């Protein structure tokens, strides 16, 4: 504070008043000096000053307005509207319907009511009615006593049981930048999971090295895109592992699909009780946790005779030797079980047993293994034994055909049909292998050429290989053939036949019985098949069939 001695009497008799007013007088004096300095020397100084003043006033107004809006709350509380949340018991990993009912409680009509959902990142909105905007908002419109509004969601929750799911929301009436707002939240617990990983059957005890089959199932109508089974604890059995590794990366699990994981229990030395814990995750979120306490038991006393082999279309049998009546749990992808699962149990008598596994006719799979786990019930306790893995070989269909016309109707043979003495007719012999479910290697197909038939040297296949014909035999050698999905792999070659007089009036064999051998790459199993001989009647050629009698 600067005190100025007044240069002239102010007319204020009280010194104190003078003191009080001194600052303002100093300011005005300063301002007068400033005005003189800035404006007096200019023309229209008054106008200039007024203009500057106006600018200052506008700036001041803007600052004041900003301050006003910053400090003053935009929204006032929304009253007279309530939101009621309705939801069934929450199940994780399955779409759950949620409904918010918004109603007016004050007898008034509330215009332009909007709802914004605020949900945790592990709650995915699968669908919404009405549709939501990018920030999960929806304009409900007018809410009146006569008209409730609803927002329906189907959400997918990825959280384990007993997790509270907060359904937070904001209701707003009016424009987005102002109006009345009501925020709230309601929590509901997760009570179950549609994605489960549970033992295939109740297990109380396990022999050292025994295997617990765990069924990982997606009980939802939606596919789970990234499922992982993790072993999170193995008290007393630190070396226990899933057979596929410490974590089982199942990947995408379709709706109602199940897979089987195998947990081998290796107890620590001297330990008689163990506890195993695992959790099931989808998209890196845990949806289920599981724990199982087990006692370590003696061996179940069942010996499964190896090797175990199975071929689709062929008989599949398991031979066992059991010390006592027991059971056998069998998981085979083509097994006839009467349910969606492809695992079932069989009873074993003491001694030697042979079980035939019923296979679904015509069924195919790309799985290459199947599993057998023995178990026994002792004193009411189920004891599970060690797992035996069987090899599932690919089917190996093989066919041979003689052709003058392709299936498309194009002519591939040349020459008279029926064949004529003294003239040459060419045909194509087609060998088809598969479809197969496994890669093959060292595939060899061959057949004898009969009655003077010779290979012309023309051959065709879309798989790399070698064709040769010598010593009266035609032969295809193929180093490797990838599994062919739904279509067979074909190998074809052209032959020529010139009938002699001795053939006149007869149907003549062109190629004898064909044989195919190959090795299944994944199992090393040798696969063999045969196909019948081919004659001039060309049974497989719809257009040329029956025109085989030599003229």
């Amino acid at each position, binding site marked *: 504070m600067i005190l100025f001695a007044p240069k002239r009497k102010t007319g204020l008799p009280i010194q104190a008043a003078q003191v009080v007013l001194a600052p303002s007088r100093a300011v005005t004096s300063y301002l007068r000096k400033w005005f003189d300095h800035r404006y007096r020397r200019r023309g229209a100084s008054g106008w200039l000053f007024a203009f500057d003043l106006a600018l200052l006033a506008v700036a001041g107004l803007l600052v004041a307005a900003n301050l006003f809006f910053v400090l003053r709350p935009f929204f006032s509380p929304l009253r007279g509207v309530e939101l009621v949340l309705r939801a069934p018991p929450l199940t994780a990993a399955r779409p759950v319907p949620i409904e918010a009912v918004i109603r007016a409680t004050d007898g008034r009509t509330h215009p332009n009511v909007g709802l914004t959902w605020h949900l945790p990142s592990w709650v995915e909105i699968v669908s919404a009615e009405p549709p939501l905007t990018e920030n999960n908002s929806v304009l409900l419109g007018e809410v009146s006593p006569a008209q409730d509004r609803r927002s329906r969601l189907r959400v997918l929750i990825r959280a384990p049981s007993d997790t509270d799911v907060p359904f937070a929301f904001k209701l707003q009436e009016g424009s987005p930048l102002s109006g009345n707002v009501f925020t709230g939240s309601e929590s509901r617990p997760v009570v179950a999971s549609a994605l489960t990983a549970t033992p295939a059957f109740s297990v109380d005890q396990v022999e050292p090295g025994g295997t617990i089959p765990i069924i990982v199932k997606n009980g939802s109508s939606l596919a789970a895109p990234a499922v992982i089974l993790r072993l999170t604890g193995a008290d007393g059995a630190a070396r226990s592992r899933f057979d596929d590794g410490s974590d089982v990366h199942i990947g995408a699990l379709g709706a109602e699909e199940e897979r089987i994981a195998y947990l081998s229990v290796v107890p620590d030395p001297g330990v008689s009780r163990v506890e195993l814990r695992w959790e099931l995750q989808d998209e890196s979120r845990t949806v289920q946790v599981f724990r199982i306490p087990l006692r370590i038991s003696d061996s179940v006393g069942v010996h499964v005779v190896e090797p175990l082999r199975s071929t689709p279309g062929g008989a599949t049998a398991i031979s066992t030797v059991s010390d006592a009546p027991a059971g056998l749990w069998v998981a085979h992808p083509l097994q006839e079980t009467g349910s969606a699962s492809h695992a079932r149990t069989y009873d074993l008598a003491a001694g030697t047993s042979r079980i035939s596994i019923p296979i679904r006719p015509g069924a195919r799979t790309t799985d290459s293994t199947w599993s057998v786990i023995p178990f026994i019930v002792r004193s009411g306790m189920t004891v599970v034994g060690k797992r035996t893995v069987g090899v599932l070989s690919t089917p190996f269909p093989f066919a041979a055909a003689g052709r003058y016309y392709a299936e*498309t109707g194009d002519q591939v043979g*040349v020459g008279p049909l029926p064949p004529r003495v003294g003239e040459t007719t060419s045909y194509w012999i087609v060998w088809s292998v598969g479809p197969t479910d496994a890669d093959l290697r060292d595939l060899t197909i061959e057949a004898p050429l009969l009655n003077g038939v010779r290979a012309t040297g023309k051959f065709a296949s879309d798989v790399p290989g070698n064709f040769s014909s010598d010593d009266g035999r035609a032969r295809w050698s193929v180093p490797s053939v990838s599994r062919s999905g739904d279509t067979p792999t074909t190998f074809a070659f052209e032959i020529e036949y010139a009938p002699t007089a001795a053939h006149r009036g007869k149907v003549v064999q062109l190629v004898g019985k064909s044989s195919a051998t190959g090795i299944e790459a994944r199992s090393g199993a040798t696969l063999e098949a045969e196909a019948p001989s081919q004659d001039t009647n060309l049974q497989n050629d719809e257009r040329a069939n029956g025109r085989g009698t030599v003229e």
Partner: protein
Amino acid sequence: MMRHWLTNGTAVLMVLTAFVMPTATFAARGTQDAPKLLNLYLGWNIFDTDRTALANWDVVVLDMDLQWQAPERMRELRLANPGIKLLAYVSAGELADARALGDPTSPSFHLSQIAPEEFFMHQPDGRRMQWWPGAHLMNATDLGPAMSGQRWADALPEFVARELMSTGLWDGVFLDAAYSDITHFFGTNIDPDGNGTANPAASVNAAWRSGMSRLLRNMRAALGPNRIIMNNSSASYASQVNGVLFENFPRYGWIAPFRELQDSLAKNASPKVSAINTNTNNVETPSDYRLMRYGLGSALLADAYYSFDAGDRGHQRTWWYDEYDASLGRPTGPARFVRASGRSDGSGLWMRNYQRGIVVVNSGSAAGTIALPGTYEKLRGVQDPRSNDGGLVRSLAVPAEDARILLGEANAVVIRQSAFRNGEFVRVYDAEGRQVRNGFFAQRDDGPAGATVLAADLAGRGVESLVIAQKGAVTVKTPGERTVTFWPFGRSYAGSLTIAVGNANRDAASEIIVGRDKARPSDVRMFSRAGTELARWTAYHPQFSGGARVGIGDLDGDGLREIVTGAGPGGGPHIRVWKTDGLTWGGSFFAFHESERGGVSVAVGDVDGDGRDEIVVGSGEGARPRVRVFDFRGTLRKEFSLGDTPALNGVTVTVADVAGDGRKEIVVGGISAF
């Protein structure tokens, strides 16, 4: 400033030109390969309905007045078929009365004005001579009076050069009535020297031949060495002309005129255009396929041109036949007489080999069977499917006075400049979806079965390389050069590849475009034939695991090529177009419904003959097999179905000139043959 004006001026000029010059909206043969076709389109105008079809002929004879009546249509013909030869019809031996009655500005009228009475041939009593109604015989001899030092043999060539050739619309002249013997048609009461007495027939004919020969010499001198002179009515002047027309073949016998035709061709000046005209004797029966084949086969035996129409009162026809579309190429040997069939006059079974097929003629009076030097394919005809059933044959039964044209057996060698899977069964279609060749196994012995192979002249030096793509590696095999192998996506990638070749820059060599098939990411990379990477980009989303199928071609006809990619399985049937540096070009589109997730195969080539490459797309795995043809805008131009049963592995498409006619066909694979 100058550059600014130049740039803008050039752009304006180009725009104006595009509007002024008519655009060729149809494609014609444009080739002189066999069969070589001649059309005697003798009428007073070119009908609207014939404008497009007429361009398909190699040589067209038009009345000389067409240059006055319809010059723009003549120009249209040349635009549609730059190789076409247009000959002006002029009678060397007669003058039609109607010529004098035409418009005074017409060439006909002008011709009538240069022919005074003295140029006509007279009987001793002074009357003009007539055989063809409405036309009178001219005095082509040197015995008649000269007018201003000229006779008919002088005036006519002068007229042709001055009045007709000077327009630039003609490639030559067709001289009708160039008889060698006039007494046969006009009788013996002929007074060529105008002395009131008929001359002896022998001397009349000798004088006529001498005069006509002089006329032809004068014609050559007036027209120059490069224009075509063709004459009708006699083969006597074969050595003086480029071609002789043998009209009404073989109505009056086969062996004699055929020998004469061969003799004429031997004597003709180049380019040789001697031709056969076979006709239905003025009866409107275009479906006399046997007669047409007989004449055509005979022309092919002689390597002559061929004309088929209704007759001398119905030459103006544009009848088209399945056999005309058989592109045989050039003859690879002489015509061979195989054996007699019926008559013993030299008629019988004849055969001649061509580059892409064979022709067999039975000029005898009895059917005959002939053994062929290999396997041949009958034409796949719609007009006479009993004769042309598309079958494969090694011997052939030919009825009397008939002929057959056969194509060489198709094989993988004809698939060039476009990739295919070695060993797969393929069928050949035109852009309309018509199967044009018998299906065959596309198997190259110089490449491994199952590999993707592509034959092309990569260096632009006339030597064909074979590009093989298999298990992640690309191998380029060129005769006389070191084999190059490179791994476009690194040695760690051993999966499938898709390939295409084309000139992606302005040098002479072609580049190799490679895509990953059924793998991620869907990279496209471009390499030189030596394996040097030139460009790379990702065609689809980095997480997309279907890969990209590739093709390359000039979609907009500007001389610069574009690269086309089609998504592999897992994505929609999405097509994208790129510049050769990887920048997007134009828009993208779905070739089939978006819901089809089996991927698509792509090929690029001109399948409709419009001078621009189209995008050919085959449907993917599990879809109904279909082929669609799009332009560069994604506008669907053509489509056809290959059946209703879903193709488990999808349909593969490639484009190649299988027929050898300069237009690409669509070669479709992925079809189960057995």
